[in-house]
């Protein structure tokens, strides 16, 4: 087995969930690396969109901003924010990647405040385009480190919608039918969501990780998929592409 770090594992696991011919709204960092890796392996026709306007660039390096000029390098279109978000709202975008300071068992995400909103303990940037992507794209993916302060029973503030209060909640709130969280990829495991309860469940464990370890780093009760596999580790070829082509300066994978 090749030698790799957790970031490489997370990026690889994310990349494998992006099928060829799908479309994805990405941000900077790991999501962008995952999309690039997917394009250079099994999904050459993956369509990459950046919220500020970039469509299908041939990314020469990792962008620092989702609106910097790398996001339109040899792109098919340099458009605007409404163009991208409305493409999502029309139902043309399959995946998005999100993060947050807190996530709960329904995949609701908080990137606004810790503590009371009016008198926050910690103020974060807010939604940005996260709520938009989470509302409009078909499937939400989250890449995040797993720890008990982040995986909480109830987020202090729902910035971006997961399954809200559970089954039927998104539809009842008026969100587009058939959308919602899809995968949560951490340094320990890949989690999906139980179809019945819409609650987070462990689907595969990274090499050497036990379910109990994942549960220890989670403040709510995790469900288990009918079968819990071992997450397939990155192949030598995936690692080569990731290290040589996707992120040669190790901005992301070097951390």
């Amino acid at each position, binding site marked *: 087995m090749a030698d790799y770090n957790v970031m490489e594992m997370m990026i690889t696991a994310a990349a494998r969930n992006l099928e*060829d*011919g*799908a*479309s994805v709204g990405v941000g900077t960092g790991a999501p962008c690396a995952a999309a690039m890796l997917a394009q250079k392996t099994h999904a050459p*026709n993956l*369509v990459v969109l950046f919220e500020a306007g*970039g*469509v*299908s*660039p*041939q990314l020469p390096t990792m962008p620092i901003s989702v609106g910097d000029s790398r996001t*339109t390098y*040899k*792109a*098919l*279109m*340099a*458009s605007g924010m*409404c163009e991208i978000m*409305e*493409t*999502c*709202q*029309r*139902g*043309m975008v*399959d995946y998005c990647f999100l993060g947050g300071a807190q996530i709960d068992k329904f995949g609701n995400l908080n990137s606004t405040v810790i503590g009371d909103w009016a008198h926050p303990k910690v103020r974060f940037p807010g939604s940005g385009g996260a709520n938009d992507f989470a509302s*409009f794209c*078909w499937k939400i993916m989250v890449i995040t480190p797993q720890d008990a302060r982040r995986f909480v029973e109830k987020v202090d503030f729902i910035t971006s919608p997961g399954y809200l209060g559970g089954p039927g909640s998104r539809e009842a709130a008026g969100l*587009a*039918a*058939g959308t919602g969280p899809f995968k949560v990829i951490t340094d320990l495991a890949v989690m999906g969501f139980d179809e019945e309860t819409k609650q987070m469940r462990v689907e595969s464990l990274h090499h050497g990780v036990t379910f109990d370890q994942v549960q220890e780093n989670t403040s709510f009760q995790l469900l288990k998929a009918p079968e819990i596999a071992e997450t397939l580790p990155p192949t030598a070829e995936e690692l080569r592409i990731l290290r040589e082509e996707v992120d040669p300066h190790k901005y992301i994978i070097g951390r």
Partner: protein
Amino acid sequence: MYKIIAEGTGPLFMDPDPDAARAFFRTKPRALAPKVMKVSQAVERFVHDGEYLAIGGFGANRIPTAICHEILRQNKKNLAFAGHTSTHDFQILAAGEAFDRCDIAYIIGLEARGLSAHARRYMESGKVESCEWTNYAMACRLKAAAMGVSFVPARNVLGTDTFIRSAAKIVECPFTGKQFVLFPALWPDVSAIHVHESDIYGNCRLKGISIADLELARASKHLIITCERLVHNDEIRSDPSATVIPYFLVDAVCEVPFGSYPGNMPYEYYSDEVHLREWLNVEKDEEQFREFLDKYIYSVKDFTQYLELCGGIQRINELRAQEHLIEVE
């Protein structure tokens, strides 16, 4: 506080439900695949009897004439049509009695050139169910669809019969208490737009006014592009700011040089006023008009043959000179 104040009585030919549209767009292919085909193939594959059709351009400017002709040759029927700033395209489709439902903003007329006798007869015949709108109202309907929502508010049509014969609704704004009309989203089944340049995937550029074509491209479930010329994908990627329609909206790309003839194509060729005048004149006599249509459309193989009938390269060169304001001896 927040209530429906009035509702238009006109028919809504298409469902304004964004979830229904999303269910379709979820399945629309996103991969960068070549889509070049003949006009006849594009119409065969993407224009079906009974569907809702929209045509890009404004009046006789930057219109996909070849698609309109081919719809007649393939004898498409019972279409619903977006009569949005529609002049020569409307005239052609009315000649073939291709539609039996029409959203009306501007029809029958050819602006300063006068009215189409046949199109008027057809619209007065009782064969066409219709609904009244305005140019901006139709643009708003396409904009709502392009945005992925079921309506867009505006401040026109209020107080008029145009509203009463529309399918719009007037509501009270929950922020200001003022009245706004809401225009329902329109997702056409299929549209055709003529542009200056496209690559084989459907990444398009155009010059001059865009009219409502950018909204139309995004609203349409299927989209046929005709272009003056194909350009290489490298050319598109060399200036992504110039792309106005991304390939994933497009289903067919047909290279049709002089494709807006007899209409005007900005920066390329001016409209052929002689030929358009002939259309208007010959329409006055139904028998003559049938012969005219047979000569210029039904007996014609393709758009190139039509151009030859109309004077070929020499005529095109004259119109190119006119476009560029060059006096040719």
